[in-house]
C-alpha cells in the first residue's frame, strides 16, 4: 500500500476528516448516525398506525379499480423536447461509458487504498446509493446510463455495419420457465458482496468482480439478445427498475401507439400499480430486495451482535465455525451469511403466509365465492408484492441519506486524483470530508417523515391492488386487513432499526 505524504500528514489528528482512515475490516463509507430517540420512534410507529386507519377511512367510498393515474406528458414542453433529443442521450451514454472505464482502470492500476481509489466510492456510494436515490426520487437513470447495455449496443451497431445487418446474438429463445431467476441469483450474490464480503473495499478485487460481471452480462446478451437479458438477467436493471416504478417521472419507449415515446410526470408510487399479477420470479426478486435492504441495517444492531455472541457461545455452532475457519472461512462472515439467507427466507415465508391468510380471511368473512375460486396464495402474493416497495424505498432513503451526503463528498478529492497517485487535476485533491453536514435533527425528523409517507403510499397502493383482485369495495376493505398488519409491522421494523445504536 502506497501512502502519499498527504495521507500521512492527515493521520495526525485531523478533525472532520475521513480521507486518511485506513482500510478497516468492515464496510466502506461508515455511517455515524445517532439512533432515533425512543420517543421519536414511538411517535413514528403510532403515527403509522393512526394514518393507516385515516387512509382507509378516506377510501370508504365506492370506486372501481383503474390502472390509470394522472399523468402529464412533459414532451409537450418545448424545452423538454429540446433537451431530450437523441444527441443528449448519446452524449450522456458516452460519458457514462467513459466513467465506467475510468473506474475499472483505477481499480486495476491505481492506489489500492480504498479511500484513495475511485472505484470504492464510485461503486458503493455514487452508483449503488446515488443512482438508487435518483431512480427512486426522479426516474429510471440506470436505463439511460447502463454502460453494459451501451457498450453492447455499440458492438451490435458495428457488427451490423460490417456484416450487412446481421444481429450480434445467437438469438436463442429465452426459456419462459426461467423468468427472472438468473437475476434473483445475481442479486443474492451482489447483496452478499455488499453486506458481508471482506474484500469489497479492496480496489483490485472489486475491479475484478466488475469485469467478471461485465463478461457474464455480455455473454447473456450475446446468447439471448440484449433486450431479453436486460429484463431477465441484468439484476441491476431490474432492481433500479423496481425503484424507478416509485419515481414521479416515467419514460415510455417509442412504440406504435406512441411513436415519439413519452416522458410522463405522475404521482409518487403510481408506477407500482399493475393491472395483472407480476411473475413469480419477479415477486421473489422484489422480496429479496426488501429483505436485503432491511438486513443491511439489521446487521448493525445490538440484536445481531447478540446472535453472533450466541453462535460463539453454543458448543455445536462454535465447533462447526471453528472447523470452517480451518478451511479459511471467517467465523463472523459465516454467521452473517447464514443470517442473510435466513432473513431472505423469512421474508418469503412471511409474505407468502400473509397472502394465504388474506385468502382464508376473505373467504371466512365473505364466503368462498367472494374470494374467487381461481385465486391462489401465489396470485395474491404476486398482486401485492409491489405495494410493499414504498416502505423499502423509504427505509433505504432514511438509512443512506446521511451516508450519501458525507461519504459522497469523497468524489470531490477523487475527481482530482482518481487513481490515488497524488495528482491534483482540479485543485480539489485536499478536500476534507465535512461530517457535520447533516444535523442529527435533520436526519431524525427526515427519516421518520419519509418512512411515514412511504407507509401511507404503500397502504394506498395495497387498497388499489385489493380493489383489482377482489372486485368490490367492501371485499377490498375486508381482504386488506392481513396485508395492512404486515405493512405496519414492516414499517415499525424499519423504524426500530433506525432507533438502534449502530454496532459492529
Amino acid at each position, binding site marked *: 500500500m502506497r501512502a502519499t505524504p498527504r495521507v500521512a500528514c*492527515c*493521520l495526525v*489528528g*485531523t*478533525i*472532520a*476528516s*475521513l480521507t*486518511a*482512515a*485506513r482500510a*478497516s*475490516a*468492515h464496510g466502506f463509507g*461508515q455511517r*455515524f*448516525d*445517532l*439512533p432515533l430517540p425512543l420517543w421519536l420512534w414511538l411517535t413514528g410507529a403510532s403515527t403509522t398506525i393512526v394514518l393507516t386507519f385515516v387512509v382507509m377511512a378516506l377510501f370508504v367510498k365506492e370506486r372501481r379499480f383503474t390502472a390509470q393515474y394522472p399523468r402529464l406528458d412533459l414532451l409537450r414542453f418545448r424545452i423538454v423536447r429540446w433537451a431530450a433529443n437523441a444527441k443528449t442521450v448519446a452524449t450522456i451514454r458516452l460519458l457514462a461509458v467513459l466513467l465506467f472505464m475510468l473506474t475499472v482502470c483505477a481499480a486495476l492500476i491505481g492506489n489500492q487504498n480504498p479511500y484513495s481509489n475511485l472505484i470504492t466510492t464510485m461503486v458503493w456510494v455514487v452508483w449503488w446509493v446515488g443512482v438508487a436515490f435518483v431512480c427512486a426520487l426522479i426516474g429510471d437513470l440506470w436505463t439511460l446510463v447502463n454502460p453494459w447495455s451501451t457498450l453492447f449496443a455499440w458492438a451490435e451497431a458495428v457488427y451490423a455495419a460490417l456484416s450487412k445487418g446481421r444481429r450480434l446474438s445467437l438469438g436463442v429463445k429465452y426459456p419462459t420457465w426461467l423468468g427472472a431467476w438468473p437475476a434473483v441469483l445475481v442479486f443474492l450474490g451482489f447483496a452478499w458482496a455488499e453486506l458481508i464480503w471482506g474484500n469489497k473495499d479492496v480496489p483490485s478485487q472489486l475491479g475484478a468482480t466488475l469485469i467478471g460481471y461485465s463478461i457474464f452480462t455480455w455473454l447473456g446478451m450475446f446468447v439471448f439478445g440484449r433486450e431479453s437479458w436486460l429484463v431477465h438477467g441484468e439484476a441491476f436493471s431490474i432492481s433500479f427498475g423496481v425503484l424507478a416504478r416509485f419515481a414521479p417521472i416515467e419514460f415510455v419507449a417509442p412504440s406504435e401507439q406512441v411513436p415519439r415515446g413519452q416522458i410522463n410526470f405522475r404521482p409518487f408510487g403510481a408506477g407500482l400499480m399493475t393491472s395483472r399479477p407480476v411473475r413469480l420470479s419477479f415477486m421473489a426478486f422484489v422480496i429479496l430486495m426488501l429483505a436485503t435492504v432491511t438486513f443491511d441495517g439489521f446487521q448493525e444492531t445490538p440484536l445481531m*451482535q447478540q446472535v453472533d455472541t450466541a453462535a460463539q457461545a453454543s458448543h455445536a455452532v462454535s465447533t462447526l465455525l471453528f472447523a470452517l475457519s480451518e478451511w479459511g472461512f*471467517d467465523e*463472523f462472515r459465516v454467521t452473517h451469511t447464514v443470517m442473510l439467507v435466513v432473513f431472505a427466507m423469512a421474508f418469503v415465508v412471511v409474505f407468502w403466509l400473509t397472502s394465504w391468510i388474506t385468502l382464508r380471511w376473505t373467504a371466512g368473512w365473505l364466503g368462498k365465492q367472494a374470494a374467487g375460486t381461481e385465486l391462489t396464495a401465489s396470485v395474491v402474493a404476486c398482486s401485492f408484492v409491489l405495494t410493499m416497495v414504498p416502505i423499502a424505498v423509504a427505509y433505504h432513503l432514511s438509512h443512506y441519506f446521511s451516508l450519501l451526503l458525507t461519504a459522497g463528498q469523497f468524489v470531490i478529492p477523487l475527481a482530482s486524483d482518481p487513481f490515488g497517485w497524488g495528482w491534483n487535476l482540479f485543485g480539489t485533491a485536499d478536500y476534507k470530508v465535512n*461530517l*457535520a453536514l447533516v*444535523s*442529527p*435533527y435533520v436526519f431524525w425528523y427526515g427519516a421518520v417523515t419519509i418512512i411515514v409517507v412511504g407507509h401511507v403510499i404503500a397502504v394506498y397502493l395495497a387498497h388499489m391492488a385489493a380493489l383489482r383482485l377482489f372486485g368490490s369495495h367492501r371485499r377490498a376493505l375486508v381482504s386488506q386487513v392481513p396485508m395492512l398488519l404486515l405493512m405496519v409491522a414492516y414499517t415499525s421494523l424499519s423504524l426500530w432499526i433506525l432507533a438502534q*445504536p*449502530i*454496532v*459492529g
Partner: protein
Amino acid sequence: MLTTAVAADGVRHKVLTLSIVKGAVAGVGDTLRVQQGDDVELRWSSDKPMELHLHGYDIEVKVSPQAPAVMSFKANIPGRFPVEPHGQGLGHHRPVLYLEVHP
C-alpha cells in the same frame, strides 16, 4: 472514571479515564455520551500494546502498559463514533467504546 468541569466560558471539559483489560474497557459501559461542543479528553491505558482509532474524528493513538495515551478534542461533530483497536492481527475486531456526541 469520568470527571466533568465547566469552565468560565460555559464549555464543559469531560475527562474520562479508560483502561483496557483483555480487549475490553473495564468499569464503564460501551457508550460514552457527550454534548456537542464539549471538550473531551480520553485517557487510555491498556494491558497490551495496541493502536486505538476514533473513527469520524479520525484520531489515532498508540497505547501500551508502559505508555498511556490521550485523545483530546473538541466534540464538534454530532454522531456515534466507534473507537476500534487496530494492529491485533486480521479479522473483525469490535470497538472498545462508542462515543456519542448529541446535539
